[in-house]
């Protein structure tokens, strides 16, 4: 569940790979016979509302990232993705943002506001617009023909046809599934109907026409916020991002695992599963020696996660939550040998992407704990987000103790969570693990 990194210039961020199991998208599903605007007409009519956005790395005075933006007001406000201009927000001294006009001239622009959770940003281009998109709700049905515009790989403004396929099911906030080729560089561009109404903002892709849009409603909400703030830029965008992430994780984690949790029976254990409807769980098992009638040991895994991940910077993301259970059973190993196997599997329980720029080193506390249903070996590993005060990454590793031939290693991973939520979830997590 990680984004590929680092992003080359203008990369549209690939979404998590779990969706890869979906059947190939049938392009023929779009009705070919219904009357619609010719694509060339759509392009001719709306292309002047779309501009290339580039982030210049000041030391080399050359492009570090490119993306797309579209005009949304007469006074020159422009919508794009946060991830297009994130370098400027994270390291303002080293970057500046420009838009490229139709005549090829670059014009410096100002970042007015960002919505890091939904990956949106509002820019002010410093000149009035002659033509712009008015954001408003658009009724769309699955299969409707849509047009996505942008600058794929800096090849020039392009238009891509595709179909609307509804919202993703396994995200906390809505994200539109657009079947059409959105490519790196098209990030921040609009996806519109034939009559020029914005359905969403291009944001990410998994390749093979599986693309994703931020719904128009989120863009409208951000624009309303900019208006309410009197079109003044935020004093410090990183502080604002920290606040947004804090509010987001509170909405996400604040009530997670409250009430009676859903449980699954995995081998000889009872474990937490699908803590909320947005979670998806996958599982499998593996025998140590496939050829033998009786394997030395068997390993079963059960993993739950969501498709949500908030991009903060190329090497830092937030808002992930993942639960992994791994069950080891053996009929052949003696107690000491099983202990060695158990230790070895426990040792390699934890890796969370991160860089020194954004996070502190990990610190772990290891204890043997009398959990409600069973004694456990519990390890909490914690690191702080350096630029997001009050937010932490955490990994909670638990190994159940008490059997000589069976064990459960369970890991809860949270990124960008408040201490209160981490601490509360650690307790709730311990309650959810038991022998059957």
């Amino acid at each position, binding site marked *: 569940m990680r984004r590929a990194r680092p992003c080359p210039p203008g990369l549209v961020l690939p979404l998590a790979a779990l969706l890869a199991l979906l059947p190939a998208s049938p392009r023929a599903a779009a009705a070919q016979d219904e009357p619609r605007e010719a694509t060339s007409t759509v392009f001719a009519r709306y292309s002047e509302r779309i501009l290339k956005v580039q982030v210049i790395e000041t030391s080399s005075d050359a492009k570090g990232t490119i993306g797309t933006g579209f005009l949304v007001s007469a006074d020159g406000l422009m919508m794009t993705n946060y991830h297009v201009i994130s370098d400027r927000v994270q390291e303002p001294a080293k970057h500046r943002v420009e838009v490229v006009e139709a005549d090829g001239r670059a014009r410096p622009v100002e970042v007015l506001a960002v919505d890091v959770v939904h990956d949106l940003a509002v820019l002010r281009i410093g000149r009035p617009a002659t033509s712009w998109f008015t954001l408003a709700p658009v009724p769309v049905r699955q299969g409707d023909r849509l047009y996505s515009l942008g600058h794929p790989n800096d090849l020039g403004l392009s238009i891509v046809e595709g179909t609307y396929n509804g919202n993703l099911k396994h995200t906390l906030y809505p994200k539109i599934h657009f079947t059409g080729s959105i490519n790196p560089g098209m990030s921040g561009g609009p996806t519109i109907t034939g009559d020029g109404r914005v359905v969403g903002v291009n944001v990410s892709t998994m390749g093979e026409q599986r693309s994703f849009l931020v719904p128009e409603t989120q863009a409208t909400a951000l624009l309303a916020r900019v208006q309410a703030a009197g079109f003044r830029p935020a004093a410090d965008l990183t502080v604002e991002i920290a606040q947004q992430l804090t509010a987001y994780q509170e909405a996400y984690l604040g009530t997670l695992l409250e009430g009676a949790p859903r449980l699954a029976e995995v081998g000889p254990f009872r474990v937490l599963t699908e803590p909320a409807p947005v979670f998806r769980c996958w599982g499998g098992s593996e025998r140590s020696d496939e050829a033998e009638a009786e394997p030395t040991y068997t390993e079963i895994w059960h993993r739950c996660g969501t498709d949500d991940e908030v991009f903060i910077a190329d090497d830092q993301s937030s808002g992930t939550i993942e639960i992994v259970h791994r069950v080891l059973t053996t009929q052949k190993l003696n107690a*000491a*040998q099983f202990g060695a196997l158990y*230790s070895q599997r426990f040792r390699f329980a934890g890796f969370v992407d991160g860089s020194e720029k954004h996070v502190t080193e990990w610190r772990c506390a290891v204890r043997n704990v009398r959990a409600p249903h069973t004694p456990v070996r*519990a390890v909490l*590993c914690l690191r702080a987000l350096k630029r997001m005060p009050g937010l932490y990454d955490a990994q909670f590793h638990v190994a159940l*103790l008490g059997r000589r031939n069976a064990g459960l290693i369970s890991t809860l991973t949270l990124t960008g969570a408040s201490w209160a939520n981490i601490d509360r979830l650690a307790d709730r997590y311990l309650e959810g693990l038991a022998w059957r």
Partner: protein
Amino acid sequence: MALILEVLPPGRHAEVRERHRLGDAPLTIGRALDNVLVLDDLHADAHHARVEPQPDGTWVLVDLGSVNGLGVGRDERVTRVVLRPGAAVTVGRTTLRVQDAGAPLPPALRLPRAGTAGRSLAHASLPVLLGVLVVAPLVVASDGWLEATARGAGTEIFGTVLAFGVLVLLWAGVWALAARVVLGRFHFVAHAAIGAAAVAVLTVLGELHGLLAFLAPAMPGASQLTTATALAAVAVVVPLHLQVATHLGTAARWRVGAIAAGIVLALLLVSHAVATDEFSPMAEFDATIRTVSPALVPQEGLDGFRATRADLKADVDRLLESAAR
């Protein structure tokens, strides 16, 4: 003053072959059998030199027209040398050394008393040493077997034992050879037994350390325990080898052991100081789990674990603060 002439035959590590007290009669020296001092030295003349007593009570060595003369100091050739205590003269390739018979000597070394702790390991009975050499690999092998989790672990265990065996033999070989060259004692089996015993003891201690790490994860200094054990091993093993290899007294041996451990510690500290902390996205912790009955495992309650977590958070916050500075 009575002088003694010591004869050291050719060779770098020559020992005194014979001694002559200088008297009133001249002493003839050469390869011929009619000399008083006969030298088996092809570089000496048949009648090479003669020691002549002087009226003032001293002695002078006079060359008798030999091919190679008398050698003094580095490369000097002379025909006449006054013999004084401490002087050395070469005749051919034989060294003649002059000693004062009345020079004071240090007291005699005390023999180790039989039946006390001072008895050298070098003289332990061969069956005992061989017993150690058999038991130690068994300890290493059973430790490997207790940690074997894959099929065909036998090969791996055999490989481990073999590797340890080769290391111990090399280690013992270095000690034995060094002792042989410097002091003329070999005692290879005793050195090997010490090395093997050390490996076996460290293997057992490693297991105990793992058990302790599992039972008491909160114990402070647990991570330094391995280092301390290794240093203690150096401080014990070195004196044992010295006991086999040298005549050093007990206190001196332990002192050398302590110095060796000190050197290892210093090297560790230096390597620690020059090592740069690489940032790691991998959370590392002591993952040791032992399948002992939970009744024997000391456990924290949920409240205790909450307090532990709060301490952890404070620790990370301090880290954040120091990173910000």
